[in-house]
């Protein structure tokens, strides 16, 4: 099991012995092999690895969007192995936030509405209070003056910042980000990651970040590399001249 160097308290997200295969019979491809992971509140974990190695699949399983073939996921100490569809959905709306490579904002809705749709857990709270919270969050990501705009009226960086705001709108304990900066230029990527890091730190949220961008991975508390369906700790060998986005280097085992 991969543990942080100085883990204390209860992990907010825990995966144990996760296995998952794609396809059937002869074409079966084992993506995850008895993979384990723990993420603690306020911790940012980066997962790196070559394309197609199963990072996004892992995130889907950690985010309760898919069920593993074997193994178990605990969210806030609650096992999700035998949870019903309803319970998993409730857990997603309460404790999990997603950011994807593409913003995936709902095109038919304004930014404010996109956030409000994600805030179902605040049912019972007054509409004014929920609206206020959504507006504050959009202001925090620098989109306070564009709350009534539709996604297609924004730039790529703005869209992704709005997606971050949406992922955090319902105050989740865990943020799962799948290449959130993969589609952005360096400046925008830095800004989006900065936002994720700042907001997650501020609220003590655990972050699992899948990225190809090593400079961003480097800024996380832990970097894990996915290889042959398992996660292994990754130490950087600093290249002489580092680009912001480089080819995936061979991991160095500790």
């Amino acid at each position, binding site marked *: 099991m991969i543990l942080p160097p100085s883990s204390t308290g209860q992990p907010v997200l825990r995966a144990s012995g996760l296995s998952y295969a794609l396809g059937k019979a002869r074409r079966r491809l084992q993506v995850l092999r008895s993979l384990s992971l723990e993420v603690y509140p306020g911790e940012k974990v980066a997962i790196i690895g070559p394309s197609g190695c199963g990072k996004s699949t892992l995130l*889907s399983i950690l985010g309760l*969007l*898919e069920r593993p073939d074997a193994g178990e996921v605990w969210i806030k100490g609650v096992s999700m192995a035998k949870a019903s569809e309803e319970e998993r*959905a409730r857990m*997603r709306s309460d404790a999990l936030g*997603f950011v*994807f490579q593409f913003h*995936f904002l*709902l095109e038919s809705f304004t930014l404010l509405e996109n956030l409000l*749709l994600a805030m179902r857990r605040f049912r019972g709270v007054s509409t004014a209070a929920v609206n206020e919270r959504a507006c504050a969050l959009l202001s925090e990501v620098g989109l306070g003056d564009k709350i009534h705009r539709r996604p297609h009226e924004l730039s790529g960086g703005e869209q992704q910042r709005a997606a971050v705001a949406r992922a955090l709108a319902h105050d989740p304990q865990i943020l799962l980000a799948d290449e959130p900066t993969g589609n952005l230029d360096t400046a925008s990527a830095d800004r989006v990651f900065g936002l994720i890091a700042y907001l997650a730190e501020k609220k003590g949220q655990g972050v699992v970040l899948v990225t190809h961008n090593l400079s961003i991975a480097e800024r996380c508390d832990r970097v894990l590399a996915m290889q042959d369906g398992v996660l292994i700790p990754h130490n950087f060998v600093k290249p002489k001249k580092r680009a912001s986005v480089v080819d995936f280097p061979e991991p160095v085992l500790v």
Partner: protein
Amino acid sequence: MQSNWIIAWRLLVTRKWAMALTLLGVALGVALFIMAQAETQGLERFFVRTVLGTNGAIRLGDRLQDTLHSSTDEEGLLAITTTREGKLYVQGIDDPEALRSAVQRFSGVKGISEVLEGQARASSGIYTEPVTVHGIMWEAHFPLSSLDEQLVQGSVASFKEAPEGLLCGSFLARRLGVRVGDWVDLTSNAESRRYRVTGVYETGVEDIDRNRLYLHLPEARVLFHRPYGGVYFQITIDDPKAATALAVQLEDTLGHHALSWQEREQVWLDIFWLIRFSSSVLVCMVILLAGVGMFNSLALLVLEKQRELAILRAMGYTRKDVRQIFALQGVMIYVIGTLLGWALGALGTCALKYIPLRLRGLWVGEEPALAWEVDHYLTAALIVAVVVFFASTIPARRAARLEPGQVIRGSAL
């Protein structure tokens, strides 16, 4: 739930044209159904009302002759039974007074009018037409028929006061070229006599208006040389729907041939049923086509919005929520389409008033008889509900079955 309504609506309006066409299809289907029912049922009701008002609910006529059968049983006892098999009968009613008092004892009988019917030729001097003469006792006939309401020329009073008075159908009056006050010669096989037109009536049923004349019963007896008997009873009853059962009862009890209006007008009633059925089927096909259009639109919407649906699922929306979103779209199309269809149907029915209808031999009039029935609106809504239910259920299920992880992963690669 509230957010599901909003999502359903927003997703629906993303495909404006497709949804507008679907709505139009549903609305047109509903409107056409209402209009077709209003027209056909209106016509049928008019016809039934007219034939009941003109010919009564039951016609009691020829006396049936019983056939006696004798037989002996196992113990050698003689048994005599009567049957009414075969076609043996005595034409008309020979003792009207006795039969009248017997008929009046049956429950549900509202009134009885004695009518003598015969064939003659009517001549205005220029034109000659074959006619059916109905000899009536106005005291008994007018209260039971709609004849006084059907007069378009002349008056009931002038007919009552003039023994030689005659009431002529409007179509026949035009054919003969006569008006109120003109004289008409009637020639039967036995006699030729002259009568004065005291009124022209119009039932709207061409068969009646083109060949029926009303005379006072004593005059008809003279014309046809039938000083007694030979009449039939035109019976009016409280519940016209019960005419067939009462006719059977009358025939069995009184031994006179009784014919209900349903049996008498069976051919027309069958035709009306066929018209209503075929027009309903045709209109239902329009609704069904609208349903197919709706199914296509929603199925395409599911394909187009896979990613959005997957994101909703990632945000904690359940399969049930997704299913509900598409079901709600069905409800929206249903409610808007039906309300629009009702409004169009009502407007269309109003417009039908201004379209002159002429069915040769059956109906002639400037303004068609239309039936305004809540049932038509409710039935149309029910048919649309069934079609919309099936058209939205399958896409809703398909949308709910989407695996968000796979959809998002597929999009991200």
